[in-house]
């Protein structure tokens, strides 16, 4: 893919990102309730103070101007003050972000590591008992409400069997110096293997819950594309060459079959973002998703606005990456 075409694609992203920002901006602008009132809360202030606050927040300007101000600030990661925390929104979000990213990445790894082998196996043994079970499993996977599945896991593994923790990110006993904010990395940096293991134990159930629908979808995609690829002439030709079956399956078939899987995985990573809110709420995971849900009830709108924007931009970028990955992995398709 040439650099020029890549640049063209990136430029095409701009109107979408602007549109997304507009919607996020309008969502907040139309929200009932006066931001100044919410900010001030119970405190009594003079009319002058109120006018000054209004000017500071830019609320006295026309909507169009406010929108461009919002975009200009957003580009510089300036989302205003979090009413509740009394700190810049960007700081609060940055503090919570590593937990969410860590959870999402582990969920992604869990999903890929289970979905691909299962999908390949189901395709190779098409119509076998295993294949049927995999099909039923993937239907269950997309039909299970994540919040309920998470609670079931907690009841089974944490309450009943008591082998995994109920909620949170790490036990109070483990004190880990925060360097990156990613507990798996920080514990390793500290050389604290026990704490690393504990962090993993806390991660396990939320990651499975978050990754489940994605696992189900990726397994289906892998199975379908593997079956499709196995019908191709180049597989017959590879067999006619007398190659070992493993080479035909893994080098010739899987390499092509994974092209759609990888690009769907990139798109589905975006849907993990939505699942985060649910899973973080169920497992008391101190990440961005739970912060957003809490902020809605606290009417901490600037934070909600910033987070929704952040999620949407990430989602757009993930779709973009999926697109690029598809072209890069596929030598035939030229941009």
């Amino acid at each position: 893919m040439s650099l020029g075409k890549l640049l063209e694609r990136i430029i095409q992203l701009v109107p979408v990102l602007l549109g997304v920002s507009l919607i996020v901006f309008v969502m907040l602008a139309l929200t009932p309730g006066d931001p100044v009132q919410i900010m001030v809360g119970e405190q009594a202030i003079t009319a002058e103070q109120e006018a000054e606050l209004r000017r500071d927040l830019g609320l006295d300007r026309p909507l169009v101007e406010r929108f461009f101000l919002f975009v200009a600030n957003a580009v510089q990661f300036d989302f205003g003050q979090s009413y509740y925390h009394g700190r810049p929104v960007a700081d609060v979000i940055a503090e919570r972000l590593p937990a969410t990213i860590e959870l999402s990445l582990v969920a992604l790894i869990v999903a890929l590591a289970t979905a691909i082998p299962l999908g390949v196996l189901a395709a190779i043994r098409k119509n076998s008992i295993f294949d049927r079970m995999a099909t039923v499993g993937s239907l269950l996977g997309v039909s299970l409400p994540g919040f309920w599945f998470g609670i079931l896991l907690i009841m089974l593994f944490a309450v009943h069997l008591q082998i995994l923790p109920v909620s949170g990110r790490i036990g109070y006993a483990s004190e880990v110096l925060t360097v990156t904010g990613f507990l798996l990395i920080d514990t390793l940096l500290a050389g604290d293997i026990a704490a690393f293991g504990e962090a993993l134990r806390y991660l396990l159930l939320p990651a499975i819950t978050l990754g489940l629908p994605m696992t189900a979808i990726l397994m289906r995609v892998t199975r379908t594309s593997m079956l499709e690829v196995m019908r191709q002439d180049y597989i017959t030709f590879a067999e006619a060459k007398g190659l070992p079956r493993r080479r035909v399956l893994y080098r010739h078939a899987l390499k092509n079959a994974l092209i759609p899987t990888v690009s769907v995985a990139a798109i589905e990573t975006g849907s993990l973002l939505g699942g985060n809110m649910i899973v973080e709420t169920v497992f008391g995971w101190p990440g961005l998703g739970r912060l957003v849900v809490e902020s809605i009830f606290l009417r901490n709108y600037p934070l909600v606005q910033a987070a929704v924007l952040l999620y949407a931009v990430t989602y757009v970028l993930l779709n973009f990456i999926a697109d690029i990955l598809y072209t890069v992995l596929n030598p035939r398709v030229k941009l």
Partner: protein
Amino acid sequence: MTDATLAPTPPADSLFRRNLREFRRNRLAMASVIVVLIFVIMAVAAPLIAPQDPNATDLFRRLQPPAWVQGGDWAYPLGCDALGRDILSRIIYGARISIFIGVAVIILATGVGILAGLAAGYFRGWVDVVIGRVVDILLGFPYLIFAIGLMAMMGPGLMNIVLALAYKEWVIPCRVVRGETLAVRELEYVEAARALGAGPRHIMWREILPNILSPVIVVSTIRMANVIILEASLSFLGLGVQPPTASWGSMVSDGRAFILEAWWVSTFPGLAILLLVLAINVASQGLRDAFDPRFSE
């Protein structure tokens, strides 16, 4: 078929019947349809079926276990929640919310999606560009986040949930309809109708739409399962239907505080969601296999 009787009509009707027969032969799909119907009957006839008043609290029955467990009572088959309300009755009434929202969102979204998709695919040009842009932008949001943002803005309420979900949902039928319209508009019978002087409205509604309905119906049923899960998720987060109205998502949420001592409070409403969604998914897969073999494996 008034002003274009001479135009060759595609055999949409007989094909539809053949597909329907194909679908009826699929036993698993038929069983799923029956499950869905049971839920629908539950929702419609809730006051007749429910053993108790779903909102009647009884503190003496707080966290009463299901009937087959020690301390249970067959008048309250699935036990009671923290306020002593009958869980089965609440599940039966909760079906109303889930099914109403699922159906309302899909009807609204499919209606808007068909209009927008037909317009984009038939007129192309700037209409297509504008609709395409809006679709791209809406696709830029993760679904749940978009709905949560809207719910935060509009506040809770049944109609607000329908709107919050439909605002994004219409994009999906729209894309399907647009793609199909682009493919169909150049076909012979459409050309023939146009040559006979049929106007765009007639062509879109009478010639194109009947022939692209199959994929639209298939996609709509699949999406309905998704919408039901989304509604339950919103209710679980406390952004959906407000108490004391029974909804499955908020019932699961209510039970979270009691997982140590009363597993049944969360388990049964969740099971209801799973059953309904699974049945819709299986049935829609059967529909897809019968009506739109292009997408089946």
